[in-house]
């Protein structure tokens, strides 16, 4: 073997060895980049003997239980189960009796009383009440005023004070006071009220100030609540003089009464700032509460994380960064929620008081009370009565959240004042619709109903009415579908019209879908609401003598309207349309839906002035109704629309054969 060959061989060998040793000393870290997982390099040890560890829970070792039986509850430790006797509420219905203190009634008391009288909670005698309302007098500070009779240690009593009251911890009574300190608040027992300004309206109230969903680009980011009331806004986004390095920029201070115009409203945590909270809510300015020391209003039921941000006051800069970087989607939903909550629960004294009572009513109902969704999504709990149904899918408002859709059949409810030929024809027309599930005749005529009814493909039933206008909207058990087609014996419709209107209703189950509409307007000269009867470019009300709406509105009409309003309708049947429209508009905050009506041309003022029964009377009366009802509601809920929903090919110059609802176009 040649020498060079052997040499090179040894050389190669030694190079190999050297390489080996080298690699052994300095491992090729390139091969797999060592990824020291941050924070995981240590972790919790995997104990080799983990399998032999004993469980913390040794049932054998548990002592024979000897629980103490119920202790007599002490005032400071009252809970709902221990300090409220629900058995006093007959049929689980909350009935309240108000003990007004002797002497002159304070203004605040009078307003609370006003809001209760005539409501469904009101009890005339203490015996039928299961909750006694005690309004502590505000006159002499510190002293609580004389305790009412039937006090009974405060059991089943609610001490209600719209203002932070010095004397509220009384025996076993529940306390509802404005912005209670979180140290003494008993969750699930006390009720936290909002801090209302002196001049808060009794009914209705101003709607939220927000006019658009998303904030205006370039809108002020922050307004800061001032110590002495009012708001301070900044051109730059840094509100704290001492925290900011850069110049805080020009400041603008707004006097106490004006509402903040900003995306976020910073509210300090001390109790005196609680009054700013409602202002921010009304203005649609998202409240940013810095470590509040007080309980947020109605915190038992309202999910405030959907409308406000509760942050730590010690991290102002972090809060600021978070606000600046908040996603548009979050801002959008927070803003809308502030407005919904304001209008649903806070805009009037009446709403605040009723919300308080509904919270207690919900506790009495327990498992069948309102689910959280009802409290926290439009139209809000005051307008969503859980007695209607236990399934959210039955209500007109929650289809989206529930992923459900309205049913595909309706019940026709025909109000009959006078029997006659038109009725039989109407029955045939309605029964001709394939969506019709049943026909109900609400017999309100003096003469007895006929024994025989025409043969129809759908079941037909007769309900004996009491010849009262409010009968029309009673939640009859016979109504088996959620959709109702409300008709008058004089309504003249075609099957095609009915079918199309029902198809439209399925898209808008919370609204009224009507054929005949009227508009309201503000009569500047006389300072009253006016009512237009002639054809107009706009409308805000649908006649209930020919309209689709949800069965739920019958329940709402009968159970939520005050007695005074229902009596008004019985005395003046012409007002029933106006009242129903007010009610639905209060719930939806939207106009009804109008669908085409073929007979419009023949009788320009249709269905009017024929026979008795609840139908629009001559104009002055209807106008009276509007003004009367508007005063009762405390505001004008009606909204006008300029849109009519027509079939897609309505009156288009295309072949009639293509059209689904062709008879709609026949003159």
């Amino acid at each position, binding site marked *: 073997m040649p020498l060079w060959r052997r040499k090179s061989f040894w050389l190669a060998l030694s190079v190999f060895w050297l390489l080996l040793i080298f690699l052994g000393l300095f491992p090729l870290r390139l091969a797999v980049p060592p990824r020291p997982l941050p924070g995981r390099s240590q972790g919790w*040890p995997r104990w080799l003997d983990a399998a032999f560890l004993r469980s913390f829970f040794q049932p054998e070792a548990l002592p024979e239980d000897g629980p103490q039986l119920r202790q007599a509850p002490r005032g400071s430790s009252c*809970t709902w189960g221990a300090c409220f006797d629900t058995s006093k509420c007959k049929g689980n219905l909350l009935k309240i009796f108000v003990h007004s203190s002797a002497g002159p009634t304070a203004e605040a008391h009078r307003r609370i009383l006003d809001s209760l009288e005539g409501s469904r909670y009101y009890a005339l005698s203490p015996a039928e009440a299961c909750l006694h309302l005690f309004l502590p007098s505000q006159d002499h500070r510190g002293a609580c005023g004389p305790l009412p009779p039937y006090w009974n240690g405060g059991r089943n009593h609610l001490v209600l004070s719209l203002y932070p009251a010095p004397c509220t911890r009384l025996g076993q009574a529940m306390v509802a006071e404005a912005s209670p300190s979180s140290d003494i608040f008993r969750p699930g027992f006390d009720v936290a009220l909002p801090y209302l300004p002196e001049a808060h309206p009794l009914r209705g109230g101003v709607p939220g100030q927000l006019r658009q*969903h*998303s904030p205006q680009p370039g809108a002020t980011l922050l307004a800061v609540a001032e110590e002495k009331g009012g708001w301070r806004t900044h051109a730059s986004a840094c509100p704290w003089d001492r925290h900011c390095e850069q110049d805080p920029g020009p400041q603008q201070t707004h006097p106490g009464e004006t509402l903040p115009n900003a995306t976020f409203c910073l509210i300090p945590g001390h109790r005196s700032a609680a009054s700013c909270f409602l202002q921010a809510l009304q203005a649609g300015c998202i409240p940013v509460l810095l470590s509040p020391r007080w309980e947020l209003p109605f915190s038992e039921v309202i999910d405030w994380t959907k409308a406000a941000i509760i942050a730590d006051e010690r991290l102002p800069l972090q809060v600021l960064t978070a606000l600046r970087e908040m996603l548009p989607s979050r801002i959008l939903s927070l803003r809308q929620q502030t407005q919904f909550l304001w209008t649903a629960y806070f805009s009037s004294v009446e709403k605040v008081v009723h919300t308080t009572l509904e919270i207690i009513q919900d506790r009495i109902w327990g*498992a069948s009370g309102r689910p*959280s969704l009802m409290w926290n999504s439009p139209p809000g709990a005051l307008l969503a009565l859980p007695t209607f149904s236990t399934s959210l899918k039955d209500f007109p408002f929650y289809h989206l959240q529930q992923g459900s859709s309205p049913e595909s059949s309706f019940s026709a409810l025909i109000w009959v004042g006078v029997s006659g030929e038109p009725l039989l024809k109407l029955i045939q027309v309605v029964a001709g619709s394939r969506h019709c599930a049943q026909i109900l005749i609400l017999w309100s005529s003096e003469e007895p109903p006929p024994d025989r009814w025409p043969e129809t493909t759908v079941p037909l039933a007769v309900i004996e009415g009491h010849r009262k206008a409010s009968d029309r909207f009673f939640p009859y058990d016979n109504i088996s579908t959620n959709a109702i087609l409300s008709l008058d014996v004089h309504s003249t419709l075609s099957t095609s019209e009915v079918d199309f209107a029902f198809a439209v209703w399925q898209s808008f189950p919370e609204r009224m879908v009507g054929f005949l509409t009227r508009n309201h307007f503000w009569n500047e000269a006389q300072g009253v609401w006016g009512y237009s009867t002639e054809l107009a470019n706009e409308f805000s009300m649908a006649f209930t003598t020919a309209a689709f709406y949800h069965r739920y509105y019958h329940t709402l009409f009968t159970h939520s309207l005050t007695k005074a309003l229902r009596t008004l309708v019985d005395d003046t049947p012409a007002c029933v349309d106006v009242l129903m429209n007010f009610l639905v508009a209060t719930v939806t905050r939207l106009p009804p839906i109008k669908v085409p009506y073929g007979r419009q041309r023949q009788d320009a003022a249709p269905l009017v002035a024929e026979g008795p029964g609840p139908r629009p009377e001559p104009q002055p009366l209807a106008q009276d109704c509007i003004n009367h009802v508007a005063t009762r509601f405390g505001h004008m809920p009606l909204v006008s629309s*300029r849109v009519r929903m027509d*079939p897609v090919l309505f009156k288009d110059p295309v072949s009639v054969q293509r059209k689904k609802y062709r008879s709609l176009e026949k003159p």
Partner: protein
Amino acid sequence: MCASVKYNIRGPALIPRMKTKHRFYYVTLFSIVLLGLIATGVFQFWPHSIESSSDGGVEKRSIREVPVVRLPAASPIPERGDLSCRMHTCFDVYRCGFNPKNKIKVYIYPLNKYVDDAGVPVSSTISREYNQLLMAIADSDYYTDDISRACLFVPSIDVLNQNPLRIKETAQALAQLSRWDRGTNHLLFNMLPGGPPDYNTALDVPRDRALLAGGGFSTWTYRQGYDVSIPVFSPLSTEVVLPEKAPGSPRRYFLLSSQMAIHPEYREDLEALQAKHKESVLVLDKCTNLSEGVLSVRKRCHQHQVFDYPQVLQEATFCVVLRGARLGQAVLSDVLQAGCVPVVIADSYILPFSEVLDWKRASVVVPEEKMSDMYSILQNIPQRQIEEMQRQARWFWEAYFQSIKAIALATLQIINDRIYPYAAISYEEWNDPPSVKWTSVSNPLFLPLIPPQSQGFTAIVLTYDRVESLFRVITEVSKVPSLSKLLVVWNNQNKNPPEESLWPKIRVPLKVVRTAENKLSNRFFPYDEIETEAVLAIDDDIIMLTSDELQFGYEVWREFPDRLVGYPGRLHLWDHEMNKWKYESEWTNEVSMVLTGAAFYHKYFNYLYTYKMPGDIKNWVDAHMNCEDIAMNFLVANVTGKAVIKVTPRKKFKCPECTAIDGLSLDQTHMVERSECINKFASVFGTMPLKVVEHRADPVLYKDDFPEKLKSFPNIGSL
């Protein structure tokens, strides 16, 4: 070529020519070298890949080897818990600091064995569950091993069960932790608090300001918004598999009580119920006559009948969870697992995770006083609601009860949400079972609101180079009364837009935005220049729309601000032959889409289109230069759950002079492409969000027999 051949001949020749002795020597040497190389190579790669797997870095040793810490008898004891503690008073939030991920950092103290002066251990070192709990935290995103960066500290001292603890010494052990500092930011987990005879409802170990995640709090001991109420973990959760039973499926008993240790007085009440309602109520007790070797935990008896526990729970609609000596009971977990609705009878008990979980949806709480009325209370609950509750109960168990890990992570999430409230998890995310989350829609524009007319709309014209047509569109659109701004999106990078002086003079501000790339999605970009909520997207060749039509379209949008409001409508159909979706542009009685050649919509949808479009739809649209309108229709319908609104009879945009049905004049390939888009988008969305309706929006008096000049929008009606 030549060289290699030569080599091939020479190479193998090298070894055969050597002497046999040498050959053997060389072969051995070579193999050793080769083996060594292979071994090195393997070592280079192998160890690291182990290290990068999850548990490579953690140490493996025995629990018996943990360091022993001697606690002097005189070492300090923390103060008793401060009942007035709140996050903003007792929690040091500065330790958490700003964090882009909005996640708290949790540190776990290393495990020690504590002994007193005499060398007697303070407690057993660690229980199986506490070991699992710490392991779950260490494996989560919250964990940090850097004590100086931690925001929350979890001692490894096991206080899950108070029974075996030596209270004073455990407290001393806590106090000597390196960052104890009066317990600030320390989190203790305890499931079985109190001890005989009076069974406190919170851990008796003095712990100063430390947060307590406790099972069995009462309203007296629970510091709302500070402590966390957790479940008492049931070991049966891991031992027994109970398959989910469909809600509403028949169950033999209406009401069942399965607990063994019940106060005699309560047992009397229950047995009275059983006597009254016979078959539908079952009250079980422990078995007295079990043969040896049978686990008594897993058996229950009624008289002489033996039942398997927890399987028997699946036979009942409602299951009693009665307080014992302690308020928190592990049976709650078993009951939820069985999909049985718990009837909680424990006055003042704070239900697990009650800060975030809505127990009303999954349980019935009956005051102890009302125990005898329980049956009638339950009977009043309608069947539908019971089914809902059963589903919810099972879901709570799956999400928050079934393992120690689930409990630990839920606890940390609650604390995390308090510290980073702007990133907190919503009620729906905590409470809605997956089936509901999947089907429910939360409309981003849910507030019923009709924006004021005064705000007006911004018209966005996407253009490439058709300047003449563009100018005509600008002139036409500027006649619409409610127009407040015009934005031209210049999508041509090779050509400059015309000089300013050449543009039509209009009464509203006109802005030109130049884009970086010629993309269709530029039309849906949320430009800062858009100041109004309403946006009119309009093509640069849409000149046939009248001012009345556009103004009316805007009015309709005001009444339906959460919808797409457009002119020509289109439809999607299910093709039964091809088994897929089909695009339909015939003049049908239904619509499910509108063309965005001219359409009004809320500007928020621009944000959604640009930043939240699911999957690769945006890129697909830009690549195909088509279907951006279908994508927008899908997006809006999916997020709002609502149908589009077609306004006015307008049926088509192009060629106003041709009266033929426009399907005939359309290119067949175009239709195929559009159908493909629908199928593609439906598969990306995982569902078909489009909604079909039969109505369109017309002015109130449209085609009514009424003087035209008195109508608000007379100039509407051409196709």
